[in-house]
């Protein structure tokens, strides 16, 4: 844990704090249909034209059911649209490699993944997807799934801010405005910046480079039908191949990467994701990419404070998120710096810690920081292999996701996720001060508690239910490449990443099987939409409530006491559920590693 790490952590935190208010103020304008921005002269006509084409009346607001139905209908159509494109890609244009139609379960998994802002990839893009599928079927979701999350968060915040009302905004207006005014312009700037750092943005064919030193690899031997030939022991027969040429990826990378980070999508342009020199060329591009992952989620806490006219509340929620973030970074950094005792024993350990699976350019600290940021914010982009982290270092990303992606969180999803915990914290603490609990003057009643707990239940059911099934079924175990507690971690990580809409993976699990494609697809859909419905029902209930004026009898939802309360609620109610499973995975693995066993 060297000084340069501490300095970089401080820089990151200060920069994050500095962008929060401007981003929040800008979001406040965008999320108000009559708000004003610099882009009005250009984008207003476009916005109005879009409404006319869609047949949307922007002045007509929705109640929670209409809002939710509009969101679900939009997502369903988007999901089916992508599924259709993937299934029909052999018939569609822009398919020079003549890729076949994507098989049904992978198409379902991929459509669900991009619709839910997860970007879990059970395929290799360069060997599966046509340009048309990539550009029309997938990239579209990078924008609208992020905008959908922000829209839901805005609707919930409006429900908290308004009182004795019915409507919580118009979904179509929120969707269009966020996409036009927030995502597109910022991505444009971000892309230009990334290009300035050396990221590629072109339409050239892949470059072939001759290797200085030819490389020999073992590949599975295939017959004429392209099937793997298996030996008498059931294992694939391998043959040696000499590689003399490398194919270097080209293409419009910067524009894709900008929305991948800003929209917390996370799907890499290349397989190595943000570890690739083109996809993350400099330390500065690394820092800016991490900041752009947090930018909108952090700004939304300011938006919350602004809307409920209690800026301190917004900052307290922010502080809770940042405290959890810091805890994660420090633990992960410490665990990775401590390294692997077995390597140390053998005298082969890197001086600065566990460097396995890490990009040398980024080192321990920036890998730990990136891993924490990307799992805090349901992004899923990676600049190191989480699977190769030490047991405790790998516990951090897993735990972050299992908390429900509420540490800054996915665009919008982080805010509405933590507000569920705020409601529960207020409920328990409210009883402790001897009044029917009130959140910003609104009574938290049975219905609200029911909806809040329902959303937590869905997360627990999705993660634990599917993992529990996978770990004892032949389909689940079939995909496992590592044994012991590490195998359990891999399966837990996959279903956590799916339900949390993160999309990063512990490598080592072969997910492209019909069973995993289907279960992970469902896991992602549950984690996204089954969580949103009760949260929107909560919004529908909150918006109708009267506001009781604050007095000395109402406890403040800002300041240190509330911060501790909120953190306690997140840890005790949100996290303890996963502790038994985690002990059997990473925690046991840690102790076994200390004892000299690896998996």
């Amino acid at each position, binding site marked *: 844990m060297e000084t340069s790490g501490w300095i970089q952590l401080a820089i990151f935190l200060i920069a994050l704090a500095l962008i929060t208010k401007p981003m929040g103020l800008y979001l406040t304008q965008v999320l108000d249909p009559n708000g004003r921005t610099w882009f009005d002269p250009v984008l207003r006509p476009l916005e109005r034209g879009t409404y006319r084409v869609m047949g949307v009346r922007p002045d007509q607001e929705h109640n929670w059911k209409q809002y939710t139905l509009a969101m679900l209908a939009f997502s369903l159509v988007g999901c089916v649209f992508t599924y259709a494109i993937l299934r029909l890609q052999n018939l569609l244009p822009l398919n020079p490699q003549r890729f076949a139609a994507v098989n049904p379960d992978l198409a379902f998994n991929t459509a669900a993944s991009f619709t839910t802002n997860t970007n879990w990839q059970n395929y290799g893009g360069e060997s599966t997807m046509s340009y048309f599928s990539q550009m029309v079927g997938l990239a579209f979701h990078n924008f609208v799934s992020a905008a959908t999350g922000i829209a839901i968060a805005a609707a919930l915040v409006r429900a908290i801010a308004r009182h004795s009302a019915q409507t919580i905004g118009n979904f179509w207006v929120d969707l269009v405005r966020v996409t036009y005014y927030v995502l597109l312009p910022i991505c444009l700037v971000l892309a230009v910046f990334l290009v300035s750092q050396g990221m590629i943005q072109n339409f050239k064919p892949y470059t072939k480079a001759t290797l200085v030193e030819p490389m020999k690899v073992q590949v599975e031997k295939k017959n004429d039908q392209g099937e793997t030939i298996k030996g008498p022991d059931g294992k694939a027969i391998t043959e040696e191949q000499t590689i003399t040429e490398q194919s270097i990826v080209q293409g419009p990378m910067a524009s894709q990467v900008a929305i991948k980070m800003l929209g917390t999508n996370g799907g890499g342009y290349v397989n190595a994701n943000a570890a690739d020199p083109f996809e993350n060329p400099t330390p500065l591009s690394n820092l800016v990419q991490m900041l752009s992952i947090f930018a909108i989620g952090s700004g939304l806490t300011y938006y919350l404070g602004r809307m409920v006219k209690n800026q301190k509340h917004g900052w307290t929620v922010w502080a809770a998120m940042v405290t959890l973030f810091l805890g994660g970074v420090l633990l992960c950094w410490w665990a990775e710096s401590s390294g692997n005792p077995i390597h140390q024993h053998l005298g082969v350990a890197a001086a600065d810690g566990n460097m396995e699976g890490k990009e040398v350019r980024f080192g321990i600290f920036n890998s730990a920081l990136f891993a924490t940021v990307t799992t805090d914010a349901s992004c899923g982009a990676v600049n190191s292999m989480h699977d190769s982290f030490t047991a405790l270092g790998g516990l951090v990303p897993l735990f972050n996701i299992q908390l429900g992606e509420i540490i800054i969180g996915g665009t919008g999803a982080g805010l509405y996720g933590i507000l569920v915990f705020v409601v529960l914290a207020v409920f328990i603490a409210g009883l402790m001060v001897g009044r029917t609990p009130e959140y910003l003057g609104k009574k938290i009643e049975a219905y609200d508690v029911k909806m809040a707990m329902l959303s937590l239940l869905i997360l627990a059911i999705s993660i634990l239910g599917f993992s529990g099934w996978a770990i004892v079924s032949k389909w689940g175990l079939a995909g496992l490449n590592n044994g012991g507690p590490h195998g359990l971690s891999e399966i837990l990580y996959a279903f956590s990443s799916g339900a949390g809409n993160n999309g990063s993976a512990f490598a080592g699990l072969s997910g492209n099987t019909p069973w995993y494609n289907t279960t992970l697809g469902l896991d992602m859909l549950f984690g996204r939409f089954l969580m949103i419905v009760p949260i929107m029902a909560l919004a529908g209930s909150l918006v109708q409530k009267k506001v009781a004026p604050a007095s000395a009898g109402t*406890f403040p939802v800002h300041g240190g006491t509330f911060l501790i309360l909120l953190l306690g609620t997140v840890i005790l109610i949100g996290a303890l*559920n996963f502790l038994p499973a985690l002990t059997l995975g990473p925690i046991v693995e840690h102790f076994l590693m200390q004892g000299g066993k690896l998996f």
Partner: protein
Amino acid sequence: MTQKPASLFDWNIIGPAIADAFKKLNPRLMVKNPVMFVTMVGAALTTVGIFTTESALRGFVAQLAIWLWFTVLFANFAEAVAEGRGKAQAASLRRARKDTMARRLQNGREVKVPAPILQKGDLVVCEAGDTIPADGDVIEGIASVDEAAITGESAPVIRESGGDRSAVTGGTRVLSDRIVIRITADKGAGFLDKMIALVEGARRQKTPNEIALTILLAALTFIFLLVCVTLKPFGIYSGAAFSIPVLVALLVCLIPTTIGGLLSAIGIAGMDRVLQRNVLAMSGRAVEAAGDVDVLLLDKTGTITLGNRMAVGFHPAPGVEPNDLAASAQLSSLADETPEGRSIVVLAKEKFGLRAREMHELEATFVPFTAQTRMSGVDLHANGTQPTMRVRKGAAEAVRGFVESAGGMFPQSVANTVDEISHRGGTPLVVASDMMTLGTIELKDVVKGGIKERFAQLRKMGIKTVMITGDNPLTAAAIAAEAGVDDFMAQATPEQKLKRIRHEQSEGHLVAMTGDGTNDAPALAQADVGVAMNTGTQAAREAGNMVDLDSNPTKLLDIVEIGKQMLITRGSLTTFSIANDVAKYFAIIPAMLMVRFSEVAPLNIMHLHSPTSAILSAVIFNALIIITLIPLALRGVAYKPMGALAILQRNLLIYGFGGLVVPFIGIKLIDLIITALHLA
């Protein structure tokens, strides 16, 4: 019913409660409490496990089963004790409800009928010695009534037709005179019946916050159920096949059994505490709402001031000796039996040493106050029938007329004094002797001792007090300032009260008020918490959601505190219960893993003796904490009026932080004990 708070260890209650704890194992009753129902199912599964497990572990599983059953029984016992305390009170009420014969008026004739056949609208006659057969309103006559059966107060009260004291309660006894009563309640729906049902808890419905909390606890239980069920496949994969009894032990330790087991006891005990203050709450919802109240409408008289005005000073007219004024004032009040009159006599004695003389010594006759003259006083007859001297005291205008008609004059300085006293919020009484204006007596409302401090406390709790009075705004403002209320309503009519309540509610406030008259009924019904005085009319008692049997309006403040305490107790024990889970994880999880992965030994930070002793200790702690906390649940968490933040910090520290630490200590101690006893 005497409301001595029953001792927590009264064998008359504990004995039957133990039996009830077993009766409550009926699954149809248990299912209403999801947390304890899951615990009971777990206990049953573990009991089966005794016979299916390998013989080496049979003793361990048997002990687990026993303690799991104890967990359920302790929770049932807590509820039974709380109910038992109510039942004891119900039994004494029931004695008052012995079936009597009623004298029903039919076409002007009395017919004896059994009380149970009386119907609403029947007229009955009651005379001295009769027990009033059912609830009703006096429509004719006046009588003194012994209401000890419901209030525990032995002094008789007056009940008369018309006015605000017309309601009588079935089961009370007429001591004197004869009254005719119109029955207002059918048999079984009377006041006494409601009381019995309420204190027995038979009609107990969950309050809104209790329902919300039950949902939270049920959802947590479901999540932990999921955690433990999925631990089975995880364990199978890891090569550590966890047995059902061990998984049940983990489940029961994780689900919030502490608050789940005590939740209903807290609610029943809260109602019981209200009852001990001699207040009858019609529902738990009303008591809970009292905790939420942030505006109190308080009648000035009786709540803020002592019922009556007192003389506090003599202001002589120019040229009159203070001594003379005092003597005449005392003279005029000698036969005046009103509290104001007596206070004048007392003040003259205290200030000037004037001894009250006997009326007949002076050959004086008393001239009582009438609405026409608006004065009272004495006529002195030295001899003969013509009065030699007429002394009067009364309102300034009336006395001015009296003096001027006798040919005297009313000095301007006296008129000024009268105005000044009015401005100060006092009541001026002018004293005159024939044509001579002697001066002014200052009467003042006396604010109850300590009430100002109490209002200051309420303000700290975020509760606004509004004084309601029929006085003019000047007087009202002066008293309001002295008493330290936040606001006042002068010359308040029932309509204005109702309007005010609606206004406060529209701003999101919850309003509590007390009232006794029929014209208070709409406001009592509108208020979130309406406390009717037992001396009040039947209409008022029906409209409110609480009845104060002592008719003491100050009690509203106690009720608010009890309501808050009930919620605080629930919240604190919930926090405690959830915080406990951390220590239980540290006890059970390492124990479960040790069997397969001995490397995890460092996780056993409490250094518990063995895996079985660790699991057993956690389960025993979990059971014992319920029984340990029963007194707290029944008594309620200590409550001090202070700001919300201060209360939150205090309770977070005690129950949140305490909830983290206590089980570490408790489980370690139990582990030491059972290891020493070779139980595990």
